[in-house]
């Protein structure tokens, strides 16, 4: 039985989870071009494409101008965006926002701003993704392109702004569960692949090979370590906050205990004297006021960043080992 379109739409209630982001070569190159040209300034842009089942296709994108801290410019930016979308639609580019891209410096993208932007996008489009490109790493012959989304459980917590230890434990959400990396697939039209096959140079050595074989990694490592140390400092100050909180909490609890003890003995005495017992709770007393628990979001984000730096250092060290042993082998010949 053929289903009507309406029925098909109506039954499509449960969306399959997003598994792959499929980027067109043109979108990849545009992102890279924009991010690289403005590096080290951080730039953003919009991704256009289609949402097809568990695959999110990114077929095109356009850059945003560098934003200035101005109210006027905000309206300007919105205008720019509308204009651009209208123009691109006229030449039959997919006119559907699927997320945004941004450049980053050594992968330091795990910020509250990113989460906020994501939540903003998420409100309007059900399925969106953030593509992150790191121009600083591409000088080492690495294509540092990543697609990220926030996990559903995290978004749920974020909406209620609920980052107490108890809630997190209940949801079993640890710091690894904030961001979810989605594998990127690159696709090209047949036309492009024909052109590129034609144009691929015969020379066996390509620029990316030269980049990869560069022996100097010191500046990259140094920056990475610097960032790592900064993050560790931040993390330890966050830890201090928690320790402070727990100390206060336990002090308060012991105060409450002693108060309760006193009240109970007093009540015993009153009972023996045949008087009404006093209530065992006293909201007016300051020691019963709950101490607000600091949000764990920051420490989670910092932990994420630290883990990211560690991964980068590890990766770069691995590459460095390869290069060193290669040099050694060459030298011995």
């Amino acid at each position, binding site marked *: 039985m053929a289903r009507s379109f309406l029925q098909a739409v109506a039954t499509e209630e449960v969306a399959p989870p997003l598994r792959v982001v499929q980027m067109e070569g043109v979108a*990849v*190159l545009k992102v890279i*071009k924009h991010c690289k040209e403005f590096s080290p300034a951080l730039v953003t842009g919009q991704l256009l494409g289609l949402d097809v089942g568990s695959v999110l296709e990114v077929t095109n994108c356009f850059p945003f101008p560098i934003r200035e801290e101005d109210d006027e410019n905000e309206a300007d930016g919105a205008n720019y965006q509308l*204009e651009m979308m209208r*123009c691109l639609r*006229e030449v039959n580019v997919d006119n559907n926002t699927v997320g945004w891209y941004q450049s980053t410096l050594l992968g330091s993208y795990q910020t509250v701003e990113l989460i906020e932007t994501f939540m903003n996008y998420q409100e309007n489009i059900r399925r969106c993704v953030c593509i992150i490109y790191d121009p600083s790493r591409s000088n080492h012959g690495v294509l540092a392109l990543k697609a990220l989304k926030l996990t559903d459980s995290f978004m749920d917590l974020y909406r209620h702004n609920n980052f107490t230890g108890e809630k997190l434990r209940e949801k079993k959400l640890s710091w690894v569960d904030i961001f979810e990396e989605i594998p990127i697939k690159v696709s090209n039209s047949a036309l492009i692949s024909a052109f590129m096959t034609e144009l691929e140079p015969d020379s*066996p050595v390509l620029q990316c*090979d030269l980049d*990869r074989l560069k022996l100097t990694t010191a500046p990259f490592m140094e920056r990475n370590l610097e960032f790592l140390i900064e993050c560790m400092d931040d993390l330890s100050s966050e830890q201090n906050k928690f320790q402070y909180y727990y100390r206060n909490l336990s002090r308060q609890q012991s105060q409450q205990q002693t108060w309760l003890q006193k009240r109970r003995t007093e009540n015993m005495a009153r009972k023996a004297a045949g008087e009404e017992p006093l209530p065992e709770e006293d909201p007016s007393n300051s020691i019963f006021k709950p101490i607000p628990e600091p949000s764990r979001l920051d420490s989670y984000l910092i932990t994420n960043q630290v883990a990211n730096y560690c991964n980068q250092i590890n990766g770069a060290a691995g590459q460095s080992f390869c290069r060193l042993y290669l*040099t050694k082998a060459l030298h011995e010949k």
Partner: protein
Amino acid sequence: MGLGSKTTLQFHPSTATVSARIHPVVLFNICDCYVRRPDQAERVIGTLLGSVSTDGTIEIKNSYAVPHNESADQVALDIDYHHTLYASHQKVNPKEVIVGWYSTGCDVSGGSALIHEFYSREVANPVHLTVDTGFTNGEASIKAYVSFNLSLGDRPLAAQFNEIPLDLRMIEAERVGFDILKMAVMDKLPNDLEGMEATMERLYTLIDDVYKYVDDVVEGRLAPDNNIGRFIADTLSSFPKISPAAFDKVFNDRVQDNYALAYLSSLTRTQLAIAEKLNTAAQVL
């Protein structure tokens, strides 16, 4: 030309453009637009953005398609569209200005002259880029032209399109990797170490090739070529001569540095894992 000495056929060579260089994103954009062209359209045309360097090389860095209508003897270009989009591009990157225009197809047609005239009003000496998306000659021909005006006295007579050299070696594409750009579907992006492996393999085959060549020459199977010999000698002499002891020291130092870094990062990760456990334990108060 027998009309008398007064009439001269004038040839206005514009300031010589040396060559043009094209960024891969332009090509990708053109092909994408061509694939998405409207139903009846034969070709797509659009504006090229970029910059002109001091030695006259035109860098074509960006492009956008401009809708147009073409009939037998006239061309209608959506000029408003062109201007709006140009203004938008300027907002993002003011350094990229109009340098010319592109069209798909393999030659310059009559309509092209008209469009070229329009772009000459936008910018002096526009380049015209043709991308043969139809593979008419069985090959991917991408050509760049500049036009010269031929005039008879004051009367413009014709425009002559001269081909200029176009540098197609796309460093940017090489950086990204041709593997990614030429495959119809690439399932996975290569990570750090996989890329390294591929590079090493290529280096290995290169060294093998050189060995084979040298052996062949030594054993008389190949005629020696002095140029290649010099290249090899140059390459070998570019290797710094370090005494084995000094090299060992440098090498070991670097290896140890790397070990220290790898150790540090593992330690940090362990620390994080412990901290997480402790935090969750602390929550069970």
